[in-house]
């Protein structure tokens, strides 16, 4: 029986003055403390009784958390606390990484996007995150502050399972950066929800493609699938088919089939495994075709 409390459970709100103080507090309090930014996942899970931390540490005001900076030599750096609406409106993002803005635009509602963050979604380790696929195909790098200093983590091995990532107690992700993507590139995110807009992704397909002379086909694709495996998934076999074979309608269909074969979705209240698999195939075909039409001849 799902019967959450009317309000939030009691906890202490902590607003540290520095990243150092924040990491130290989190380290010291172990699993009784949790960092938060937009709170759109945090507060829902606390009310539902899934998360029971006694200390919530607000990190969104700390150094670097709110900047968006583009360097033409290096790429884009986005503070972890930049909310989705800011991403969607950012001139730097729209000019150089429009896929991020497009994916962020499919999330929930305007109100939730005023608070939700791309990094927050990643840190929650949900395989359903709409923007996670875009971050993966754009080779996003997480910048992490801990009591031991700073480090980076790529997204390739970041997700361990539903809700589980490589983050340790005391870790605070301060930013996500993206290298310059290979030019010219095109990407798209196709989301299948129940409503016309908003909702969670029953299946989400992110596709990014670019010309690459080192590939037999002359092109490379990076694909990421949401909500169809315990973690956001790169269907590598599908990517390989598109790299090794001259691209046409048939090869795209074969690649889409390979993507479908790579996934192990569950059946839940939102959709059955059977439907999800078919949609992986159909939407991968659609996404790759959309990208191909823009980068191909």
């Amino acid at each position: 029986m799902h019967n959450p409390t009317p309000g939030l459970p009691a906890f202490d709100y902590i607003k540290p003055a520095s990243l150092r103080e924040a990491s130290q507090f989190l380290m010291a309090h172990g699993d009784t403390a949790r960092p938060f930014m937009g709170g759109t996942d945090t507060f829902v899970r606390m009310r539902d009784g899934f998360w029971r931390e006694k200390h919530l540490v607000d990190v969104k005001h700390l150094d670097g958390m709110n900047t968006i900076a583009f360097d033409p030599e290096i790429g884009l750096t986005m503070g972890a606390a930049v909310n989705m609406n800011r991403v969607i409106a950012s001139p730097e993002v729209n000019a150089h990484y429009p896929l991020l803005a497009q994916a962020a635009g499919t999330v929930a509602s305007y109100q939730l996007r005023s608070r939700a963050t791309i990094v927050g979604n990643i840190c929650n380790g949900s395989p359903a995150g709409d923007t996670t696929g875009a971050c993966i195909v754009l080779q996003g790098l997480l910048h992490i502050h801990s009591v031991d200093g700073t480090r980076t983590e790529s997204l390739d091995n970041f997700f361990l399972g539903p809700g589980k990532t490589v983050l340790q107690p005391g870790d605070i992700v301060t930013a996500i950066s993206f290298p310059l993507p290979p030019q010219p590139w095109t990407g798209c995110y196709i989301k299948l929800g129940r409503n016309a807009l908003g909702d969670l992704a029953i299946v989400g397909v992110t596709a990014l493609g670019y010309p690459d002379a080192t590939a037999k086909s002359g092109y490379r694709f990076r694909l990421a699938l949401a909500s169809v495996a315990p973690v956001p998934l790169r269907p590598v076999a599908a990517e390989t088919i598109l790299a090794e074979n001259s691209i046409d309608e048939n090869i795209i269909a074969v690649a889409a089939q390979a993507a479908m074969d790579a996934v192990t979705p569950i059946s839940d209240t939102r959709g059955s495994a059977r439907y999800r698999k078919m949609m992986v195939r159909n939407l991968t075909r659609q996404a790759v075709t959309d990208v191909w039409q823009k980068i191909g001849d």
Partner: protein
Amino acid sequence: MAYHNIIFTLNGEAEAVVVPSHMTLLQMLREEMVMTGTKNGCAAGECGACTVLLNGEPVNSCLVLAVECDGQELVTVEGLAHDSQLDPLQQALVEAGGVQCGFCTPGVLISARALLDRNPHPTEADVRAALVGNLCRCTGYVRIVDGVLAAAERA
């Protein structure tokens, strides 16, 4: 349980309140400040009945902590009308027939106000997208969308 002294502006006026850490902005508005125009429809960020402007941006106040509002600016539905004159958006919604039971109306007005502030000439699709997070069960949204578009035209 930790308490916080917070100061913020609400509908243009400075306010000072003491709140526990886990009180939401929605609870503070309705229970501490008796500003009951903003409604509680789900406490989970889905229905939008609790929408207010936080530094000019619409948020679900049920998913914002009261303590996070320290030093911030808040606007609720009570702050839309000026000296008993309805805001043109409110007037347009009335004339379009976009108000039935009225429970979703405060949240709708806040979301629509913010839309028109950032996009004075929205398309119908823009209006629908901006209101996706405001659930209505009575109107079927038809006259709500009509009212927002009419308000945009007049401005």
